């Protein structure tokens, strides 16, 4: 059996209290082997981002455990979580989350500066086809371009695990495929575990494993025996 990148036991997340409490995660049991591309599918509001946030060390579970390799994220101090994010994790957020007062290159540098073994920021931006726009501010970029900056920023640190919350939501098929290729490269060359949240079910075809999520729990896990390349996917 492959070593696990992540495993969760009874992972629960409740927002708020009392009558207005929202159960975003209801006891998630999940194993993700190292080095795989995993696609997370599910309806809006089913708790995908919440799960990503917790195993990415951005948020804490209300109950249950989440293990990265053999370390329990639930038992880490804030400081340890910070180091975990700094040293292992790359993020692409659902809402891009670029720093408005930094240029594209500086947004990437924000991460490479503190990473252990980063790429050259310009190289990362070239990978997503943005060599021409490195000195532009987010306000001067289109939505898709902003998203590609966010992806360049996430891969530039050479992460061990890469979390992508709808990385291609705003992209056309050509750039979308280019972005997926970048993710695939990171997975193949670095052996990084890549977790992609998406609404486009067709993208599941490039994954090693597809997790169907509904109402805060895992409905079904499908292991994909024959992976397609991004070019082969229907858009």
């Amino acid at each position: 059996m492959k070593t696990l990148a992540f495993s969760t036991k009874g992972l629960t997340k409740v927002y708020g209290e009392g009558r207005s409490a929202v159960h975003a995660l209801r006891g998630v049991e999940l194993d993700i082997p190292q080095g795989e591309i995993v696609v997370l599918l599910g309806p809006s509001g089913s708790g995908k981002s919440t799960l990503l946030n917790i195993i990415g060390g951005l948020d804490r579970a209300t109950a249950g455990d989440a293990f990265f390799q053999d370390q329990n994220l639930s038992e880490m101090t804030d400081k340890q979580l910070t180091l975990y994010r700094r040293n292992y994790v790359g993020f692409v957020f659902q809402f891009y989350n670029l720093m408005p007062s930094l240029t594209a290159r500086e947004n990437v540098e924000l991460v490479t500066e503190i990473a252990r073994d980063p790429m050259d920021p310009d190289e990362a931006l070239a990978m997503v086809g943005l060599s021409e726009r490195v000195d532009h501010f987010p306000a001067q970029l289109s939505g898709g371009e902003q998203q590609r900056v966010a992806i360049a920023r996430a891969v530039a640190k050479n992460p061990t695990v890469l979390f992508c919350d709808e990385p291609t939501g705003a992209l056309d098929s050509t750039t979308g495929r280019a972005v997926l290729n970048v993710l695939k490269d990171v997975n193949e060359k670095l052996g990084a575990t890549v977790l992609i949240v998406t609404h486009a079910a067709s993208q599941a075809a490039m994954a090693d494993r597809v997790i169907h999520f509904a109402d805060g729990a895992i409905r079904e896990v499908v292991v994909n025996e024959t992976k397609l390349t991004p070019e082969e996917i229907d858009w």
Partner: protein
Amino acid sequence: MSPLDHKLLRDLWRMKGQAFAIGMVIAVGVGMLVMMTGLVTSLKETRAAYYERYRLADVFAPVTRAPDRMAGRLAAIEGVSAVEPRVVGAALIDLIDTDLPVQAQAVSLPDFHSPRLNDVFLTDGRMIDSSHTDEILLLQSFANVHGLRPGDHIQATMNGARRSFRIVGLAQSPEFLYTTAPGELIPDDARFGVIWMSRSALAAAYDMQGAFNEALLSLSHGASEAAVLDAVDRLLGSYGGTGAYPLKDQMSNLFVSQEIGELETSSKVVPPIFLAVAAFLLYIVINRMVQSEREEIGLMKAFGYTNIEVVAHYFKLVMAIAIGGALAGCLMGIASGRALIQVYVAYFKFPFLVFDLDPASFVIGVSVSILSASVGGLLVLRRVFGLTPASAMRAPAPADYSRTGTIGHALNRFLDQTSRMVLRRITRQPARMAGAVIGIACGMALSVSIITIYAGFDRIIDLTFNVMDRSDVTVSFTHAASDTTIFELRRMQGVTLVEPVRYVPVVLRHGLISRRSVITGLSPDARLVRALDADLAKIPLQNGGIVLASALADILHIRPGDMMTVEVREGRQPALQIPVTAVAESLLGSPAYMDLNALNRVLREPNRVSGAYLTIDKARASKIYTALQDMPTVAGVSLKSDAEIAFKVLLDTGAGAIRYVMGAIAFIITFGIVYNAARIAYAERSRDLASLRVIGFTKGEAAFVLLGELAIVTLIALPLGALMGYYLSFGIAAGFSSEIYQIPVVFDSASYGFAAIVVIGAAVVSGWLVKRDIDRTELVSALKTRE
């Protein structure tokens, strides 16, 4: 450069208006500190150097007439390092440019050597040659006012004899930095002169051959001043010694010390106010920044930046503003200190300047501003620790406006959509509004108190010269004369009212505290000069009791009903026990009043007067002056109008002049605060405003949402600020008050109105600046990125 530093620079640039406003407030506080401490140390050092170089005496011992050999006895007292006996006397100088003879003091210089103590600084001409008895030196500041030069001749009356003198030189002396005519409080270069002449010539004029009537003493290091004073008094007692006094009680030095002390007080009180305001502003600004940059903070944390790194980033911004402001403040302080010190050196008549900026003040200024900014910043940045990256990553939930109060419901029907937005924001986000209100109220308070102080300065002049003293002319006699002189004055044509007065030099003592002072004996039915209480009602001089000015009562820690020891320094020099019957309001000087008859009774010198207050028919003024000059008992005549002018000059050129600097500063600060509040409101709502514009509201309607809020906040702040300003006025007035004058706090609606106009003006200008930005906003970019 790291990307975070890029962000820092861009953030600074984006908020340059605000950063500049806050930086200015800090700069002003630090500048004020550097300037004032620089002024104070420079003045103190200069004074010390001047005193030392010209060997100013440590002890002054006036005596009626002591034989020269007593000088040797004085020198033998343990702790005395040098003695200089001299002759001093009152003189009257006739000048062509004035109706009235001018009072002067004649002071002897040794015939054959320069004085061991109280040397003079020759500014013009040459020293006197003792073989020519008509040669004199004249006080330079006095000579300048009257256009007298070496080579000129003047007429002077000494000891009843009128003589002509030749001015051979002009001089200054540390002993006469301030010259005040006897019985007056306000120094005036024009109305009191000092004449130096050779000891032999002066002794001849005052029948002091082989004798002296004042001894100057210097003390050796570590000598006990009190012991020397006692010993001197014992030695000179039988020669009519009227009590030796130390330098700190000497008139000129007392005055200089008061003025420097006043500057020193302001230097300690005022800058902290500015720095506190700056800390408050920084707190508000950083608070808002952290709120609006939750997302960025979350992002940095998500990437693995530690709390410390994130806090450090914002802290650098605070420091950039604080240190930038502090450095600008140091430069401003140096520049203004250099400019002002010249003014003060001229004002204090120092012949040279030891300019010394206290390096400690830079260190204190910079570190205090860093400290206060850090407190303001850290209070907010604490919250950075609390933000979890996940919660920060989500856009903040739209502010909750759902709870609408009853007033809201009632009002809603009358309000249009935009007015409702204004109102809801104010009622639903009271904490943020409170910040803005308090800020603007602080600005209002500063303006109110400064304008109140201005009114107080006007008031002191009005009260002193129109209410407390209603005479036109004060006449002083050469000695305590018989009251028949009063009848003589009353018979003079054109003199409408004459009231006798008696001045008696005393030392007031209560417990361990003592004070040199003068008792003013007034007739109980006096109408021209009276003791007044705080409501300006006449205080009856109950027979036998003393009425003390409040400043004096405070110094002596004495209250009505307490007994006070009064050591008379004249005539038989009795020590008396007299009850204090009331405390009088006094703005100028610190007088002690007694019933004239009761005073004469305890002195056992019935019917004696030392001067009179007159009202006269102005048309006959010059005839009256001539008649007064011809009366042998008259030592001096002073006009109230001259005294009033001198007082105004004093208030506008001395330590009081700082009020103009403070006025300018208060305005800068008020504007800084109001502008800051407007900017913050704008930044918080820029997206809302852009949305409104997108929906189809006009620029004016969108601006109304913001400016309406600013207007309401300002209107709420005004009464609050007025109240705060009322209390702040007392603090600032106390800072400006000294023993010589006390600045009253006047509750004057005009001051409050004017302060309100200043604040509203600042709000209008700030609103206009922000409106300009609203008009310029590009809708698309405003919506695309947050903030």
